[in-house]
């Protein structure tokens, strides 16, 4: 016979301290990656100089300027984009109950990119500040299209096919636009393969008013997402307004991936890979999954950007291409092992 004390004596929610320790470790890893990002590149910079540039800045030293003005900006943008995409991935996989969902694979990034390109080419005077809004409307449009095409059955395979179709459609339409406008092509080609550059730091000012509420909002959704994970019916029985939860999540996903696209162009696979990494560490408690995914997303993005700069020194590979090179095999592996 079990007496009541034997049950209560067990830890409340399975090793909170362990999860915090893990988070600390991931945080430290992030710091290391950030440091490498500042120190390494076409030109490796002495660690002491990086330290000086950070904490004792001398604006006359060209290497310190490089660290502070170029790499630091680029680092910040990578951090934000990685975190946003990873979070969008966690949410989109949760709401769709589809382990293959990702803003890139489902065409949401392509939709945002198309709207941005079309807006910049056709609407005169729609510069800078309107870019995030264009990206959001494109992301929303693409997301709704995928939802409609998937229909009511909620089949994972059908959703991925719908996403592939939407992604192909918007990429093709973007390509057509750029053929029409050759000058635009030169300006946008880099952006369209997902490139991070130091000058993107200015765009952070455009997106943070949307991005910060979206990130906070996703944390507020965590508990409801935990209940939603048990199934629509069980969640409703527990008092979750499932329809409202899905709608809110959709808006948050749109803002997160739209912001990332507005900043650096469509970057795929981060939203796919990072949630799986996070789940590997933390299983399926969204209250932990979301902060873990934020950190891991930042790590993956910063590492990808670093690799893009290191692999073919002194040239660079666009970050979006690096994530695709790493992410595509991962996607294939997921299809083979996770999806029946």
């Amino acid at each position, binding site marked *: 016979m*079990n007496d009541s004390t034997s049950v209560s004596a*067990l830890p409340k929610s399975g090793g909170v301290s362990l999860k915090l320790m893990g988070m600390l470790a991931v945080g430290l890893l992030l710091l290391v990656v950030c440091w490498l990002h500042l120190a390494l590149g076409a030109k490796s910079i002495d660690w002491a100089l990086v330290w000086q540039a950070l904490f004792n800045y001398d604006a006359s030293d060209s290497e310190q300027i490089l660290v502070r003005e170029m790499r630091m900006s680029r680092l910040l943008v990578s951090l934000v984009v990685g975190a946003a995409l990873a979070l969008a991935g966690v949410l989109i996989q949760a709401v769709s109950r589809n382990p293959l969902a990702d803003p890139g694979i489902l065409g949401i990034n392509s939709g945002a990119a198309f709207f941005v390109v079309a807006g910049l080419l056709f609407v005169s005077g729609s510069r800078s500040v309107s870019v995030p809004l264009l990206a959001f409307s494109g992301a929303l449009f693409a997301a709704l299209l995928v939802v409609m095409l998937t229909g009511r059955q909620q089949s994972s395979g059908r959703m991925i096919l719908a996403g592939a179709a939407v992604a192909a459609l918007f990429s093709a339409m973007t390509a057509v636009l750029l053929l029409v406008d050759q000058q635009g092509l030169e300006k946008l080609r880099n952006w369209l393969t997902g490139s991070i550059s130091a000058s993107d730091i200015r765009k952070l000012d455009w997106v943070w008013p949307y991005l910060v509420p979206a990130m906070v909002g996703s944390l507020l959704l965590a508990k409801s997402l935990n*209940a939603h994970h*048990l199934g629509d019916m069980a969640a*409703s029985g527990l*008092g*979750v307004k499932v329809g409202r939860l899905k709608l809110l999540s959709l808006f948050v996903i749109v803002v997160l991936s739209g912001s990332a696209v507005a900043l650096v162009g469509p970057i795929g696979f981060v939203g796919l890979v990072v949630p799986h990494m996070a*789940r590997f560490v933390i299983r*399926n408690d969204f209250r932990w999954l979301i902060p873990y995914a934020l950190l891991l997303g930042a790590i993956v993005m910063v590492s990808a950007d670093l690799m893009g700069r290191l692999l073919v020194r002194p040239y660079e590979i666009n970050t979006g291409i690096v994530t695709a090179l790493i992410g595509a095999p991962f996607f294939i592996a997921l299809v083979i092992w996770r999806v029946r």
Partner: protein
Amino acid sequence: MRLSVENLSFGYRNQSVLKNIDLTFPDAGLTVLLGGNGCGKTTLLHTLAGLLTPKEGRVLLEQAPFSSLGRKAIARKLALLPQMTSAPAGVTVRELVMQGRFPWQTWWRQWSKADQQAVDSAIQATGIEDLVERPLEQLSGGQRQRCWVAMTLAQDTPLLLLDEPTTYLDIAHQVELMNLIAQLCAQGKSVITVLHDLNQAAAYADHMIMMKEGSIYAQGDVENVFTQDNLKVVFNLDADIIREPRRQQLLCVPHTDHDGIVADSPMPVAKVG
């Protein structure tokens, strides 16, 4: 009067599933909903849980219409165990049971002592102490079902709605679960459940409701409702009602002389019931 419905109708498109149902559920004890496939019993249960909005009429929870209550407020009074429960990936039994406390938690009040007590006693009542750290997807169907029952118990509601709770269980676990439900009723909960096993229903029900084509055909205590005539009308079943020797409870024994059916059938399949 905890739960009642007034003039309730529900339908999809042109097809009506529930037709002008008026019901008041007993405040304590086990109410069993019986009826053939597609008679609307699951739809009625879902309407009672607030998952479906009635086309006409209303559901009253402690005299208050559902439309005036928030979803969480309803979930603090009334727990639902759906028919098809899943084994969500990466969730341990403890985490599942803890989810039962969702409607009691708010932003300023997270995990409380009351939450912990409700979870502990739900785990004990269902006898799943040894499973709590196991991932749900590793359990057998029967074990999993007991864990889901534990989750609905942790919700600590006066009303429990169960949709065929014994479906995945072997006979010993079915009896165990039904005994648990009877015990909960004895403690003052009102439980409303859909059951498929007629004899189980007859053995445990305090109140029996038979549905046919979206309406209530008969209701009352088992002795009055569980009759040969009602079974014939509601299930189109020819059966004898006898009493079992130990406690003199009613049992139905379907007639098994099905020669005519077998003769007409192209495949030599025996159809029972």
